[in-house]
């Protein structure tokens, strides 16, 4: 086994790039920062691929399971006598896989942005923030303990905030960044309380000891309960709350559609491929704990995932902003991943859901990034996000068209593209564990195909809209990533995940379950067909359907009014009914009592000053009366 200490460079290089690009941001030519950022990240990508190769394929012959390796760690701070926080690197199947995913997508985004963001005033700032994000995300996935993960979790949140509000002169972008940060912060509060509880029970933050199936935590659990439910279930559910926020699960999903205010490469990197899957990664990281100690929490994970995927898919069918369609699509696909984890077992074949979830994470990252970058190319060409203002673009944007089509076929689960393999395995895992959820996801597969091809046909087919300037294909820097990701979407389905990434590290073989595979392809094709009929040529069918089903249409179009609920709670309740009264109370009650004390003192002083009348005789009177009284008192006490 080689020495993996070099992996410390993987998060370190982007951090140095961030500092470098951030501090020199005004001083060097913008284009240079793009080159430096991209070059630095390509080094990191090469290192990650090398690590993956060494880890997965260069082991001693006969080694059974993939074990966890910790090439580096150092004490960061002592919290209590027992708990101390270490910073380090953990290499195991999922972290190495994530290294590959993150660096690949990040590199594609870096290259793409050289074309997309060209000429933008904040170009250097953009690349600095991209490096910050890459550093944070890489640090998150290689975290050997839950505290380090929390640290980088927050850093990822801030990078996301900075990038969403990148166009900071637009109020909507600023507001979207704020919303994203606050919603995820709220979720992070749950995460923090979960970590507090978990670390109190177990006395450690370390993943290896927490998730060791023979370790103390799993074998003995805890006797602590709160309101009748085991403290460990509480802890893990709260931790999932944190994951649900980052992964935009219902009801903490409201920030994701608004996050589309950021530049499209950002949407591709953060809000499609990497940050949003952090929640899935978190559950996967703690999976043995969930499975053995808190299966109820796992059920919650599955149902939340399932519900979210259906919810988001329905909304995606009516949205007109192409980025928002893709955002809801991301939510839906992450729901798949969560569901797959939720229904999974542990160990070998039972861990099918786990493997499928990770597999889908991998393929989804590729094709979703492709979809977003393609959307960016479209927006770059026609200067609008609204699909009603587009049409017939296949003539003008050939490369974008083909790659986008490949991605749509992938997400719809059509073989031999990768989406088919990963989605199918999720469906099989659901089929074997929870029939209800299986049917939900089956339906969602069809809806997915429908809305994706609705998007495709509306943009590339249909009536050729008259454009102000003729749309032209994107420059080389933008189309090359599209092509690379398209190849990834086509061929990553053949990676033998069952040998590499499984719930307990041991490989297993998968037999195709034709009774699931064939219907899944069929429903995908049905969705495509329906979209073909509705949207390939300009027809009146969609509008007629919208008017006949006006109520469901309105609910879907308005995202089920969840945003309005949140706005009500935050504005009317928190701001008006809590914050304002507190401020009023402070000024008019607490402060007023102080002022009142001063007023009373002044009043007393006013009264007493009357004694100082300047009248000689009054003074004399007081003096004499005092003497007389004292004399009498003296005499009285002397003779008694």
């Amino acid at each position: 086994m080689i020495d993996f200490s070099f992996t410390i460079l993987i998060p370190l290089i982007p951090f140095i790039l961030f500092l470098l690009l951030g501090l020199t941001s005004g001083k060097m030519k913008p284009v240079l920062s793009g080159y430096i950022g991209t070059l630095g990240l390509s080094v990191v990508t090469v290192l990650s691929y090398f690590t993956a190769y060494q880890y997965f394929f260069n082991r001693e012959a006969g080694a059974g399971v993939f074990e966890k390796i910790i090439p580096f760690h150092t004490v960061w701070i002592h919290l209590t006598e027992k708990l101390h926080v270490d910073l380090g690197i953990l290499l195991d199947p999922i972290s190495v896989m994530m290294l590959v995913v993150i660096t690949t997508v990040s590199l594609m985004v870096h290259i793409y942005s050289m074309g997309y963001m060209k000429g933008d005033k904040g170009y250097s700032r953009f690349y600095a923030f991209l490096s910050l994000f890459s550093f944070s995300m890489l640090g998150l996935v290689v975290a050997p303990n839950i505290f380090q993960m929390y640290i980088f979790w927050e850093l990822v949140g801030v990078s996301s905030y900075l990038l969403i509000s990148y166009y900071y002169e637009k109020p909507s972008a600023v507001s979207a960044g704020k919303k994203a940060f606050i919603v995820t912060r709220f979720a992070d509060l749950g995460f923090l309380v979960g970590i507090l509880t978990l670390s109190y029970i177990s006395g450690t933050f370390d993943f290896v000891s927490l998730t060791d199936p023979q370790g103390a935590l799993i074998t003995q659990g805890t006797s602590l309960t709160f309101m009748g439910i085991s403290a460990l279930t509480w802890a893990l559910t709260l931790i999932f709350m944190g994951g649900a926020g980052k992964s935009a699960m219902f009801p903490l999903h409201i920030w994701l559609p608004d996050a589309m205010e950021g530049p499209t490469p950002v949407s591709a990197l953060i809000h499609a491929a990497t940050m949003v899957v952090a929640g899935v990664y978190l559950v996967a990281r703690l999976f043995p704990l969930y499975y053995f100690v808190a299966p109820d929490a796992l059920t919650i994970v599955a149902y939340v995932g399932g519900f979210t995927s259906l919810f988001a898919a329905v909304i995606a069918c009516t949205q007109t902003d192409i980025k928002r369609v893709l955002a809801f699509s991301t939510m839906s696909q992450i729901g798949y991943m969560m569901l797959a984890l939720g229904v999974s077992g542990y160990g070998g074949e039972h861990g099918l859901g786990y493997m499928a979830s990770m597999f889908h994470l991998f393929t989804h990252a590729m094709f979703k990034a492709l979809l977003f970058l393609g959307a960016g190319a479209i927006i770059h060409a026609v200067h609008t996000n609204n699909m009603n203002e587009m049409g017939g673009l296949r003539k003008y944007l050939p490369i974008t068209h083909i790659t986008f089509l490949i991605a749509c076929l992938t997400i719809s689960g059509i073989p031999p593209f990768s989406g088919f393999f990963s989605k199918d395995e999720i469906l099989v895992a659901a089929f074997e564990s929870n029939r209800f959820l299986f049917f939900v996801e089956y339906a969602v597969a069809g809806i997915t195909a429908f809305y994706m091809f609705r998007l495709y046909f509306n943009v590339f087919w249909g009536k050729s809209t008259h454009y102000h300037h003729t749309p032209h294909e994107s420059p080389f820097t933008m189309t090359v990533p599209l092509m690379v990701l398209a190849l990834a979407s086509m061929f990553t389905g053949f990676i033998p995940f069952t040998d590499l990434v499984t719930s307990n590290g041991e490989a297993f073989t998968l037999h195709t379950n034709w009774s699931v595979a064939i219907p899944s392809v069929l429903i995908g094709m049905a969705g495509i067909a329906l979209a073909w009929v509705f949207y390939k040529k300009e027809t009146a069918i969609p509008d007629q359907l919208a008017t006949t089903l006006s109520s469901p249409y309105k609910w879907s179009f308005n995202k089920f009014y969840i945003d309005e609920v949140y706005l009500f709670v935050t504005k009317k309740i928190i701001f008006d009914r809590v914050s304002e009264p507190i401020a009023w109370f402070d000024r008019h009650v607490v402060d007023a009592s102080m002022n009142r004390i001063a007023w009373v003192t002044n009043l007393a002083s006013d009264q007493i000053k009357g004694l100082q009348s300047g009248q000689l005789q009054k003074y004399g009177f007081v003096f004499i009366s005092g003497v007389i009284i004292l004399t009498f008192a003296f005499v009285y006490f002397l003779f008694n």
Partner: protein
Amino acid sequence: MLSEIPLSYFLVVSTLMFFIGIYGFLTRRNLITILMAVELILNSVNINFVAFNRYLFPDQLEGHFFSLFIIAVAAAEAAVAIAIIISVYRRYSNIDVERVDTMKF
């Protein structure tokens, strides 16, 4: 002959003078009248001292000496008081004690 007058008669007289003096001090408006009342008080104390000395300690003379002191001090004090009254008159153009109240709050 003096020995047939009880001590208490003298004390009553001096007490009456004392309180008349106090009354005058507290109620009169004219500064000079107030000064006269103060003189009354001082004289009443004189009578007290002499009476006690004569009746209770006839062999000693401290009371008489004290009485002489008081007369001397009263004279000096009257001189100072009149000087002050003259200054007050120059400042306020009247010597009504109720007008002299600039030292109030």
